[in-house]
């Protein structure tokens, strides 16, 4: 992912793969905007990583693009996910 999609949110920067997934489905920004019920400009800022969406919008976009939220939105400096054993302990 090129750095032009990088945006700093405090200590973190966000990158998105929305454009990549959207083009796989031959969707325009307008199509995606209509499907998730927002204005096209919002999709433009989302793709540039300049808009931090609500969980609802992130969920709707992910669902429309048949992806998971964490496939679409990637935060730099994100801590490594815990190992399955640690996750099991935390869940218990």
């Amino acid at each position: 992912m090129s750095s032009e999609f990088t945006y700093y949110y405090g200590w973190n920067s966000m990158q998105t793969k929305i454009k990549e997934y959207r083009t796989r489905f031959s969707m325009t920004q307008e199509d995606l905007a209509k499907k998730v019920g927002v204005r096209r400009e919002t999709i433009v800022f989302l793709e540039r990583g300049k808009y931090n969406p609500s969980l609802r919008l992130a969920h709707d976009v992910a669902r429309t693009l048949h992806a998971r939220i964490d496939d679409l939105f990637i935060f730099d400096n994100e801590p490594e996910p815990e190992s399955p054993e640690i996750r099991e302990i935390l869940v218990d």
Partner: protein
Amino acid sequence: MRETKQRNLYRIIIGALMLMSGLISAVFEPGGFIFSTILIAGGSAFLAVGILRDRQYRDGPESDERLKKIGAYGLSYAWLTGILFISALYWLDFLGILRMGTQRALGLSVMVLAISAVLYQMYLVRKGDVE
């Protein structure tokens, strides 16, 4: 989307009714100049906003979560600016540096609040988000 169109339809109907009432009032009651002027100006504004928004946002939502968030933050920043401005006016008056009447001070405060809200919102819309 249907809601937006309905809202614009209401704007157009209300605008047309106000405009017609203003014109009728101006013709049949020449003494009520202020009343008919308010009706004509308000009706024209409603009508213009209804028609323009309907044409501009025919196929999509007029507002979404990003714009609502920006709107709210813009108003918050404007409120803060207003507080600072009013505090400055108070201290300038208290120290005898600048004296102005209540009417002028209130008028200026209203202008600062309204204009700063619009400017903050314009800036945030261009920026994309509030953070």
